[in-house]
């Protein structure tokens, strides 16, 4: 069930209606869990069993870790959880990729190839696996007490707004929201009544509207330009390649942050707070700043559960660089079993290592007066984004020769007037959308919080705005809704 289909609208309205009608808190929570399972079953069919298996495994392992005092036993239990979760993820996501790599070697040795398993990737597995791993690791580290109820833990894992493409929630963020505080100091024992409050309703709908607009108006209508350019980029000039790269950067941002907005908005209407996943990433002034703004829930997960346990930046420079490389390469391959994502992760690790080396050799750079001026900031944004967008090329272009060609044209400029006219006349709408998106981003960067402004409008003006947005979406609505890009991961 895609968010951008009428089925989801019907499903969500039904959930809201029934949750509002149900008076008993327990029934509300059970209904929300069953609704989430229905949502997942509708999207993933039989793979619902994997979600339930992962939930049961981590619930009982988490409890066992918490109640045992034997350190060795705790470690073994943690390993059971990690191997269970990572085993499932590895099997479904990377087995065929591994077999195809082995086949390359076998082919060179003139040996018979191994048959591919041709497994279907269960939707959302990369997200809920990371979510459940964080739960058991937090208990192991003594940072979290286990959930006392399987229902509540199951709802944390399966909560439908963020189930298939994040944000990756932490148990410490979600589980307390299921209970009422009975005093200022701690969590109470009562289940929280799910009440749809008007402020949350208006804010949530506005956020969902932002999400639909980003996805269906911008991302889906910029996609044809990007597809046209990167279907066969060999022979195109630098303008086309740069335009395609900018288009893809905007498309993937609108697609993924649009999904996140819908997820956060839907959860907010139900009274749940999900932390934001994006914070104007294309205004980052350094590679590390970019990772504080892009897919925040994944980058913070990798920092807390991989980078810091590896030693972070507390050891030698070489070790820090190695840690960055390992984390970014794993972050890359998390997106999918393909060398493209490894190259993408590798490029980002190179950016971060170069930044670390420069700031270490020239500590004054961080406090440079010019870089703190408005002009200096603009220059650093442009330079950083030039390289961030360069990394989108291996992310988007699957064929190796086409990728190398595109990177070459992106870095070494070579313009052809005929190509520029051709591409511009054939893609007027996507180009207008790209320019409009950049303009909107600049407006929102100037500290105007559009979301707050719109959700605080008087009801009649707010409805008018909603009507305008729906009409704009409808006018450019393609009858075949496009998948969210991150559903594939």
């Amino acid at each position, binding site marked *: 069930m895609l968010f951008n289909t009428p089925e989801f609208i019907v499903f969500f309205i039904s959930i809201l209606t029934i949750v509002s009608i149900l008076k008993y808190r327990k029934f509300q929570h059970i209904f929300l869990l069953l609704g989430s399972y229905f949502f997942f079953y509708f999207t993933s069919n039989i793979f619902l069993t994997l979600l339930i298996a992962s939930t049961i495994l981590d619930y009982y392992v988490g409890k066992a870790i918490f109640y045992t005092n034997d350190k060795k036993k705790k470690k073994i239990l943690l390993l059971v959880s990690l191997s269970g979760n990572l085993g499932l993820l590895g099997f479904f996501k990377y087995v065929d990729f591994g077999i195809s790599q082995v086949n390359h070697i076998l082919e060179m040795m003139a040996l018979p190839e191994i048959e591919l398993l041709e497994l279907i990737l269960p939707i959302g597995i990369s997200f809920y696996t990371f979510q459940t791993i964080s739960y058991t690791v937090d208990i192991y580290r003594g940072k979290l007490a286990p959930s006392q109820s399987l229902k509540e833990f199951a709802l944390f894992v399966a909560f439908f707004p963020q189930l298939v493409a994040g944000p990756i929630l932490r148990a410490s963020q979600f589980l307390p929201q299921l209970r009422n505080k009975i005093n200022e100091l701690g969590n109470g024992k009562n289940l929280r009544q799910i009440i*749809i*409050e*008007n402020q949350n*309703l*208006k804010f949530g*709908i506005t956020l969902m509207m932002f999400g639909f607009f980003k996805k269906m108006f911008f991302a889906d*209508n910029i996609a044809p330009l990007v597809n046209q350019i990167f279907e066969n980029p060999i022979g195109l000039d630098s303008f086309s390649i740069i335009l395609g790269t900018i288009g893809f950067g905007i498309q993937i941002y609108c697609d993924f942050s649009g999904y996140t907005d819908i997820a956060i908005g839907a959860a907010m209407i139900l009274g749940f707070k999900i932390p934001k996943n994006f914070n104007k990433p294309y205004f980052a002034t350094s590679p590390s700043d970019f990772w504080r703004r892009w897919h925040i829930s994944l980058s913070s997960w990798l920092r807390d559960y991989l980078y810091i346990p590896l030693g972070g930046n507390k050891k030698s420079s070489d070790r820090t660089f190695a840690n960055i490389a390992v984390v970014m390469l794993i972050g890359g391959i998390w997106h999918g079993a393909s060398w493209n994502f490894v190259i993408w992760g590798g490029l980002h690790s190179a950016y971060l290592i170069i930044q670390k080396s420069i700031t270490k050799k020239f500590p004054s750079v961080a406090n440079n007066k010019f870089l703190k001026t408005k002009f200096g900031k603009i220059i650093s944004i442009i330079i950083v984004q030039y390289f961030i967008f360069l990394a989108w090329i291996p992310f988007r272009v699957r064929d190796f020769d086409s990728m190398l060609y595109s990177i070459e044209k992106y870095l070494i400029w070579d313009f052809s007037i005929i190509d520029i006219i051709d591409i511009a*006349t054939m893609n*007027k*709408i996507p180009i207008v959308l790209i320019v409009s998106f950049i303009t909107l981003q600049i407006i929102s960067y100037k500290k105007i919080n559009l979301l707050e402004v719109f959700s605080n409008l008087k*009801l*009649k003006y*707010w*409805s*008018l705005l*909603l*009507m*305008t947005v*729906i*009409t704009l979406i*409808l*006018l*450019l*609505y*393609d*009858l075949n809704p496009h998948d969210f890009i991150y559903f594939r991961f």
Partner: protein
Amino acid sequence: MNNNLKIIFGVFCAFILSLTIFSFYMEFYESGVLYNTNWLENFNLTESFNDDQQTINPKHVSIEFLKRIFGG
């Protein structure tokens, strides 16, 4: 009226109005009134709700409309 109901009413009105504008737009486009001085005077708005007709892709209609207005 309850505040939540007011908001839901606002959303409902926004939906209905935008669907109305959208239906008029599609039908006006079909009739030619949006871009052609010799538009079909006997066009029928309700025809767009006829099940036998093939569903028109709104995006293609908008692209065609913009092409006719701005050329290209």
